[in-house]
Each structure stands twice: as C-alpha cells, then as structure tokens.
C-alpha cells in the first residue's frame, strides 16, 4: 500500500464482514510504518472514514496521526476527534488491534492533562474501557489512566462506579498497582474507607520481586486509613506478602509507623505535637489532609469507647476523659458523630448529660434478610469460582510438571509410608 488513498479505499472496501476485517488488519499492519511517515497529512482522510463501520482503519489512521507530537493549537481538535471515535467505534473491530487502541487512548489522556481539562477525558475513557474489556473482571491498561483522570477532575462518583467491579484478570501488575492506588484515593475522597483499605492492601501484599514506589506510598496511606477507619493498626504483614516487601517496606515508612504507635498511646495532645513537628514531611507526601483526619478520628474513637462503658455521662466528663478543651467542644463532637451515624445517643442540654443508646438494628426486617441473602449468593459464586480455578490449575501441564519434579524426590518415602499404612 503506497498511497494513503489506496489505504482508504481498502478500508472502505474490506470493513464488511469479520474475515474481511481480519484481512484488512493484516494489510494495514504491513503499511503501518508508511502511514506513520505520512502522519501529518492524514487528517483530511479521517473525514472520509466512518468511525463506526470503519473502526479498524480509523484506528490505524488515528494512531499514526497521534504518534507524532501534537502542537497545542491542534490538541483540542485531536481530543475531540479521539472522543468522537471512542464513542462510536465498534468493539469487535477494536479487539483486533487492542494495543493500538490503548495507545490512542493514552494519548488522549496526555492531551487532556496537558490542556488541564481532565474532565473531558473521563466519560470517553470509561466507554473505551467498556469496549476494550472482554469481561468486566479484566483489568486493562486504561483502568489506571481513567481513575487518574477521575481523581484529577474530582469526578469521584464515576470512578467509584468502575471500582465497584471486581477484578480478577490482569495483564500487567503495574496497571494493577496504579489502578488500586488511584482507586483508593477516590474511595478516601468519598469516605469509603473499607474499600480503600482493601485496594491499598492489595497493592503492598502483591507478589513482587523488587520494592516499588507505588507500594511504599500505598503502605503509607494504608497506615493512615487504617487508623481513621479502625482506630488501630497492626504492623504485622500477612503471610502471603512477598519477602522483599516484608524486609524493606518498613525502612521507607518509619515516620508513619511512629505516628501509628503515637496514636495507640491514646493522648491527643501528644499526637497533635507529633503531627505539627512533622508537618513538612507529611505535606511532601501529600498526606497532610489524611493526617488531620487521623487526629480527629482519635477523639471519635475515645468517645466511642465511652459508649461501651457508660449509659449516661455528663458532657464535662466526656471532655475530661477524651481530653477536649471544654464541654461545649465535647457537645459539638458528639453532635457531629450522632449526625454521621457513628454513635447512637441523645443529648440532654438541660442537665448537660448525654445518654448513649443501643444500636436499634434488630436484624428482623425484609431489607436485612435480602442483604443476607445476596451476600450468601455472592459468596457462593466466589467459592464456585475458586474451586473452578483450583481445578483448572490442577490440570495445568506446567504446574503438574513442576510438582511432579518435586514429587520424584520424595517418592521413596511415599512408598514406605504406603507400606506401613497397610
């Protein structure tokens, strides 16, 4: 294919059925380089192609077009073009050249960030991901980019929507790390601390050969979120963490571990002084907002502990026990917690007393039954999946070969025990 026109003609001709398209794919692959060379003149030809029917061809052209650095004036145009393409392309055709699609989308992300309007890319990337994924459980390379754009443009709800999907298949571990890390930031922004903890936990317990910076940052945030959400932090790594992580992670995060041990001493004033003295370091990691939340969570934690031991307590006593400055401040804290649903209580302003109530949940309503039922079903699906994977692995020739090699070493002992079993 020498000329671009010839290419265009080919595309228009061969975009009908599946075999045609695969044939077209082959042809286009061969002329990839030549297309790239002519990238600057490609834009008028793009108008001749229809993104929905000629998706594959359009993709090649677009990729060649965006492979060269784009000047600022044209950036807007390119962005609009790419978005239109993503919205209208056919998924089946895209799957023939997935890496091209990914690189086009990545260019889009770069452009959008360059133009400092990340929000333009959010919807487009979401559509792109949905079209690229063979199933919702697959992590594509676009996931981290999408989540990053959500974080930058503060469109947390959209990001959360994607995060709700469980991920089981991944292409690149690095994608997973970035995706989980950015995703956790979205969850923290929406105060979904449990999900954030899950995501961060996945990052630093993932198997890895060398410690990477993402794991370090994730661990720092994990410590902070764990203190906010659970009020405690255990520095023990689970067994399945890789040995590299177990040995080295603590060296990089010593400041946060000190913060955690300070927190567990239970004195707000000490915690505040510690935080103030290390303010620049926390700022440097962009974690100061989280750290402030940690400090405020401490008084909340103390008040919650009081609900376990007291039925009624005067506001002055609360202020004293929790080391707040005055009864008024205690009242504000308690009020805030009641509104947030963190404790159940009533404030009697006449006596200055707070009455702590029990959790009203009786576990008798229809909603609760439905909740339990859906949980059971979800878990059954999960365990079915688990057994399926276990089965497939036991039949995997590579695995059997490896295990078989080790078994021969022990065969002699096996035979002996077998004899004794008779």
């Amino acid at each position, binding site marked *: 294919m020498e000329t671009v026109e010839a290419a265009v003609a080919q595309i228009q001709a061969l975009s009908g059925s599946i075999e045609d398209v695969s044939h077209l794919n082959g042809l286009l692959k061969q002329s990839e380089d030549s297309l790239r060379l002519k990238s600057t003149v490609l834009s008028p030809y793009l108008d001749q192609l229809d993104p929905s029917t000629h998706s594959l061809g359009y993709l090649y052209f677009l990729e060649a077009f965006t492979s060269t650095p784009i000047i600022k004036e044209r950036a807007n145009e390119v962005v609009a073009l790419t978005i239109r393409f993503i919205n209208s392309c056919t998924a089946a055709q895209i799957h023939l050249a997935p890496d091209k699609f990914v690189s086009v989308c990545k260019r889009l992300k770069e452009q959008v960030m360059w133009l400092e309007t990340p929000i333009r890319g959010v919807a487009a990337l979401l559509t792109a991901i949905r079209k690229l994924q063979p199933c919702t459980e697959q992590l594509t390379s676009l996931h981290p980019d999408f989540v990053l754009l959500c974080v930058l443009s503060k469109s947390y709800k959209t990001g959360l929507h994607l995060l709700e999907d469980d991920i089981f298949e991944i292409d690149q571990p690095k994608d997973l790390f970035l995706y989980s890390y950015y995703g956790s930031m979205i969850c923290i922004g929406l105060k979904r601390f449990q999900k954030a903890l899950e995501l961060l936990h996945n990052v630093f317990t993932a*198997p890895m050969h060398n410690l990477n910076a993402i794991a370090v940052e994730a661990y720092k945030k994990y410590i902070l979120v764990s203190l906010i959400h659970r009020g405690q932090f255990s520095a023990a790594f689970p067994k*399945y963490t890789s040995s590299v992580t177990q040995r080295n992670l603590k060296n990089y995060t010593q400041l946060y571990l000190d913060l955690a041990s300070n927190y567990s001493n239970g004195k707000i004033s000490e915690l505040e002084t510690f935080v103030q003295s290390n303010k620049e370091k926390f700022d440097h990691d962009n974690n100061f907002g989280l750290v402030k939340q940690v400090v405020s969570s401490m008084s909340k934690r103390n008040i919650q502990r009081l609900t376990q031991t007291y039925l009624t*307590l005067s506001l002055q*006593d609360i202020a004293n026990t929790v080391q707040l400055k005055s009864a008024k401040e205690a009242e504000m804290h308690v009020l805030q917690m009641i509104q947030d649903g963190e404790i159940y209580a009533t404030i009697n302003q006449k006596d200055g007393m707070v009455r702590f109530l029990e959790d009203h949940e009786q576990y008798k309503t229809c909603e609760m039954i439905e909740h339990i039922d859906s949980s059971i079903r979800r878990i059954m699906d999960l365990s079915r999946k*688990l057994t399926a*994977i276990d089965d497939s692995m036991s039949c995997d020739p590579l695995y059997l070969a490896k295990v078989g090699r080790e078994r021969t070493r022990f065969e002699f002992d096996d035979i002996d025990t077998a004899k004794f079993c008779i």
Partner: protein
Amino acid sequence: MENDEETSGQMIDEIYTNGGEGKRHGSTMNGEQLDVEAYAALYSGRTKIVRLLFIADRCGNPAMQSEALRMAYDEIKKRDDTQLFREVVQKIDGRLGPAYTMDTAWVDAVQRRAEVKKEKLDVELNAYRTNLIKESIRIGYNDFGEFYYSHGSLGDAFKSYIRTRDYCTTAKHIVHMCLNAILVSIEMGQFTHVTNYVTKAETTSEALEPVTAAKLRCAAGLAHLESKKYKLAARKFLDVGPELGNNYSEVIAPQDVATYGGLCALASFDRTELKNKVIDNANFKNFLELVPEVRELINDFYSSHYASCLGYLGNLKANLLLDIHLHDHVETLYNEIRHKALIQYTLPFVSVDLHMMAHAFKTNIAGLEKELEALITNNQIQARIDSHNKILYARHADQRNGTFQRVLQTGNEFERDVRAMLLRANILKYDYNQKQSRKQ
C-alpha cells in the same frame, strides 16, 4: 409480714456496712510491726540469715533494722560463711557497738579451718574414687556439697550435689540428692532447676515419705510463685500435707505455706475452687490456724464482706513486703484480689447503687467509677455505668444480634480475602508466564 420487713431491713444494713464494723471479734488484726525475733525463730540455716538481711534492707524502721542485723551477725558466727559475715559487718557499720564489728581473728580462723577441712575431704574423696566404692564416693561428694554450702559457695555446692547423681543406687539416694539440689537452687534463686529436680524426685519408683512429699510440694509451689503462675502455686501449696510441720525450716515455714497458698488461691481461683480447695480443705485448715488473719480474710471474701477482707489485706501488706519470696508479687496479688472482689460484688445484681458500693469498699465514688470503667473495658464486668444517677446497670449481650453481626462480618471478610487471593494468584501466574516466555 413484719418479720419480712425486719429481716429485709437487716439485710440492707448488712449489705451497706458489708461487715465493715461488725466482725472484729476473735481475730486480732496484725497491724503491729513484724516481730523480728519471732519471725526469725521460724527458720533455720542459711535462709534465716538471708531473710534477716532482707528485712534489714527493706524495712524503714531503724530499730527493726538494727535488731535484724544483730541477729544476723549472731547467726553467721555460728556458721562458716565469711562472705556473708563481711556483708553484715558492712551493713552494721559499727552502729551496734564494739561487739558487732569486724572480727578478723574469727574470719582467719574460719578460713584456716576451711582449708584444712577441704584438704581432708579432697584426700578422702580421691581415696574413695580409686577404690571405686560407689556409696563412699557419693557420701564424699555430699560432704563436699555441704562444706561448700556452709561456706557460701553456692555454685560449687550445687555442682557437687549434682555429681552424686552418678553414684546414686537407691531411690532414697536420688531423693536425697534432689532435695539438696533444690535447697541450693532456691538459695541461688534459680527456680528452673527447682522445678526440674522436684519432678525428678517425684517420679522415682518408690513411694515418697509424706514429709518428703510435702517438702517437694512446697518447693514446687515456690517455683511457680516466682514464675508468676499463681494458680499452679496455689494448688501446690494447698496440697502440702500437715506432716510438713517444722521439718523444712531451711526453706519455708508453715505460716508461709498458709500465706502464700491463701493469697495465691484468692487471687486466682474462682468461687467453686476456692470453696472446695481452700475452705473445705481439712489439711490446709491446720496451716491456716497458724495465720488467723489469712483465714479470716479468705472467709470474709467468700461471704462477701469485702471491706473487712480488704482491711486485713491492707494490714498484712507491710509485713508481706518484707518476705523474700513474696515481695515482688504483693502488688499484683493485691490488685487481682481487689478486682475479683469488685467483680464478685456486681455479679448478682441487675443494678447497683454506686454509693453503697463505694461505702462497702471504703473508697470514694470517683475512684470506684474509674476502677469499674477499667474492668468494663477489659470485659471482666458486663455492665454500663449511669454516671448521672451513679448506678451500675448489668448488661447482657444480645446473643441473636451479636450472632447476626458476626455472621455478616465473617462473610465480608471471607469475600475480601478470596478476592484478594484470586488477584494475587493471577499476578503470580503472570509472573510465571513471564519467566516461562523469557526462558523460551
């Protein structure tokens, strides 16, 4: 009808006073100072001296101190330990007059005697060894052990006693060796050895004499006490038979058995065990007669007269702090007993007025509230405090709700763990595939 009102009125009064004022008849509260002479008369041998020195160090009272040091000096002169002698003289510092100063003549005499004796023993032992008569060798090593012990070289004494093991022929010999080893280990403070040798002695083929069995149980109890296993220590002390009498005065007096056993039992047994093993224990009664305060305080605790029980404890405290084995543990045991008393007080009630409770325990309400708060946080009392009206309400966990909560929580955790696991498996698979493709 009227009778009921009367009796209920009486009962309320009793709960209120909690035996604070009523029950003083008979027992004398041992609030006065420890009588050093009487105390020391209970013991013999090296432990007497060590105990006297300990008392001299720890008591704040100069009169008692000089008395203890004087007695220690006299005792040491009766034995041959020059090291201890030097120590005592240093501590006396000339305060007790010219009769109690450094007697270098005596020291030299003792040293010379020691050397002569050592030579003699050495020669004898070598003779026996060449003759290869087991029994004589054993006796020889034993003599060496005794010699070293009386001169204060405890390590050498221990080693000598241990050497007799190879030459023991009958079970009696083994028991004898074990008892000696135990004695030296207790003096040295190495209680792991004590436990070992007690087990060794108890597992010999012959049945033990009751006195020996009692001695071994005391030693085992002491070892457990040192390692803070109060329940086991209590059990051992409670099993000591009355045959012990004064036979083990080189280590422990029967009063001590009663005190240690009683306090450890009170701190660690629950109510049924306390009744069965302590109050109804005929053997232990004999020991408790020797320390009537401990007997009274156990009975008070059992019959819920907490104020008087804690009163007795308070009085005994000063003297117990002067005891070499118990002094570290007094605080812990006392706290345990106090906590147990608080918990036992609140157990039968649905609601408790904190005023009455504070009066029963002779504290103020604020302090009581703090103590109760600590116990509730540790989940030892199931209750909630109404701080406004100062009432403690018992609170029983709702099993059904609790179960539902736990079920949902476990389900969530399972889900999280399995999802994370599948993810990690995937990463490993990817890794493995990478390696494979690189190899190929």
